[in-house]
């Protein structure tokens, strides 16, 4: 009898010690980023934002204003964000505003956030989003199958979604809070990376459960990316999502990237933040650095609540 698939995978990729990983990431939070290095980090973070709205109450109008914010976050020389992230039905509306202007359109598909729909339906959703103009597809993995130990099924579904993406970049959401252990997160990362193309992403969460991106699960995933790159040469990108609301947090995540994956991952082709309220805090801190004083919240246009 062969060992169960998950056990075999864990044997192959090695375990993660929870206490140890949390101790490692605690060190990132003690880094003190000042002056020019702070400006650099904040601007870099702005370019990495996938500005997101994923609400039942989203309308073409809301998406339009989100797109404007993405293209021009604030007056001055603030760079544009990496992408807008919307539901599939909103892709065509977003396309009207940002297509060809340097901000990409990302769409959550595959019955986001639960993924609990027949595969056929999920694939059709992906194809439609791509046809409507999505440059990037954020899919959710089948967590039920993963926890049942049906790893081949999980991986096979990722392959089918990847095929349905065509040229669009794929981001695979592990939904770390539902996998619960760091061992599972590492295993799921490898499961996905082994069938991804260079430049595809693995992503922590949907933002729709109680726990989202943390420095801990981010660290497990970027260490997996590092190990996978060193073993295969394939560069996989990373997107923590949900729960990153402050500039300070974003800088801590970037320090983790700097010290774990190095300079080649410090750009928006390799690292993104799935967030909405983060952007204005980044702008607020950038303005504080520029002017030497905190500006009132109403100084910054607010067009992305939720997530």
């Amino acid at each position, binding site marked *: 009898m062969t060992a169960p698939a998950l056990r075999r995978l864990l044997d192959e990729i090695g375990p993660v010690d929870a206490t*140890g990983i949390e101790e490692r990431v605690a060190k990132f939070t003690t*880094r003190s980023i000042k002056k020019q290095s702070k400006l650099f980090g904040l601007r870099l973070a702005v370019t990495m934002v996938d500005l997101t709205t994923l609400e039942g109450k989203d309308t073409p109008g809301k998406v339009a204003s989100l797109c404007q914010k993405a293209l021009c976050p604030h007056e001055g020389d603030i760079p544009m964000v990496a992408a807008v992230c919307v539901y599939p039905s909103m892709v065509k509306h977003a396309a009207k505003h940002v297509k060809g202007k340097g901000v990409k359109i990302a769409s959550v598909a595959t019955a986001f956030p639960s993924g609990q729909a027949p595969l056929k339906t999920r694939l059709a959703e992906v194809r439609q989003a791509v046809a409507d103009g999505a440059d990037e597809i954020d899919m959710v993995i089948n967590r039920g199958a993963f926890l049942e130990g049906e790893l081949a099924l999980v991986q096979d579904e990722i392959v089918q979604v990847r095929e349905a993406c065509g040229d669009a970049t794929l981001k695979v959401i592990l939904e770390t809070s539902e996998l619960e252990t760091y061992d599972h997160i590492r295993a799921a990362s490898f499961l996905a990376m082994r069938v991804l193309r260079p430049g595809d992403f693995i992503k922590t969460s949907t933002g729709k459960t109680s726990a989202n991106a943390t420095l801990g699960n981010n660290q497990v995933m970027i260490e997996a990316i590092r190990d996978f790159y*060193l073993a295969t040469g394939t560069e996989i990108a990373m997107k923590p999502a949900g729960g990153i609301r402050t500039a300070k947090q974003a800088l801590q995540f970037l320090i983790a990237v700097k010290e774990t994956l190095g300079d080649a991952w410090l750009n928006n082709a390799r690292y993104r933040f799935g967030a909405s309220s983060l952007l204005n805090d980044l702008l607020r801190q950038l303005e504080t650095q520029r002017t030497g004083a905190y500006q009132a919240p109403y100084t910054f246009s607010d067009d992305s609540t939720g997530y």
Partner: protein
Amino acid sequence: MPAKKSPARPRELLFGDLWEFDPAPESAEPFIAPRYGLFIDDKFTAPKSRKYFDTIAPRNGAKLSEIALANAADVDAAYTAAAKAFPAWSKLPGKERGKYLFRIARLLQDRAREFAVAETLDGGKPIKESRDFDLPMAAAHFFYHAGWADKLEFVAPGRTLQPLGVVGQIIPWNFPLLMLAWKIAPALATGNTVVLKPAETTSITALKFATILQQAGLPPGVVNIVTGAGETGAAVVDHPLAAKIAFTGSTEVGKIIQRALAGSGKKLSLELGGKAANIVFEDAPLDQAVEGIVNGIFFNQGHVCCAGSRLLVQESVADLVVAKLKRRMQVLRVGDPLDKNTDIGAINSAEQLAKIKDLVASGVKEGAELHQPSCKLPAKGFYHAPTLFTKVSQSHRVAREEIFGPVLSVLTFRTPEEAIEKASNTPFGLSAGVWTDKGSKILKMAAELKAGVVWANTYNKFDPSSPFGGYKQSGFGREGGKHGLLDYAILK
């Protein structure tokens, strides 16, 4: 002729200068006096020797202050004050002694930032360590022992603890304030009075601590602090009023003290050197093990008696672990200890730096393979790059002698038995680390390793309630926990 095939370039990560961190110096004022006297009978007094010596900042070699040099007459004055204070202090109800200790602990917390900067200036350790480790731990030791002061009758059921009298305490330069706390807190909790001598290169925080004692209103003479080098230490050891000597420092000096005390009837506890094995099994969580290895050897520039200075790694994962370790070492930041981002600060003294360099040179000469990450060291001050030796064998000096610096020797093993044998093949026995995902292996190793502390899947973790001390030439006696209290008392 066919062109020579260039070998495939191994994939590596680039830890470059894309995002450099700006200097982030800690700016709190350390309040260091230009000159310090001796602290005897609650007063700062000029030394009878009339001599002072300079103390310098290892980060740049600049003079920080002048410290009094205590001679035998000064030490005698300190013992006399302590002996005079003993009857009243030892008869004080435990609850009252506890109040003083609580007060000291809280004052240390209040003045933590100031003390952390002073510690970093005087000793060279990174500010993030003095801020996040030394100060909180020092306060924790006073809090812990404050709790014990009125509960001494519960330490050993049916027995009571009685104080010894005046204890002489000599502490090292690697954790100046923390070692002071380890020594003074249990001594006071059990009702003893104290004559303490800090290391000559790191007296400042001990003398600043004297001002906390004044703030706390501790009765005169209960704690006396005499400063100086070896001769002062000898006077502390030899004084007839000493009921006990507690020493933390080198094995060499420990042996001298033990000889000096033979037949004197004085109690003795020694916490000496170490050459700890950090044992990594093939089934360990390797990235976290690497983090533990880094904590084990580069914490406080390796100036740690329980530093994990020998890495024993199972052959099957040795190359992988070393590769991960080298990658991790590339992002260690070496430099000005006052910078909040510094991971490895300054070596404590020119003398210690010379000793480290000598041992590193011996490692190279004896055939071990040296690896240091490329890092720019500051031009002034005492600095040493983090250093890794591979291809080390048991007989190399770097595998046998305590280096007390940021130098790690990597050895390999094949079976658990071999790991235990190699780990124990040293005159020391202070600490060890075991890394494996298998609980049963941890228990087996912990039982068989001859070391005072065995850490499992972690390293360099301390707690006031956990006794710390060694086997063999690492000393005897325990500090912390119930065991530590018993070393400062007579069981009646």
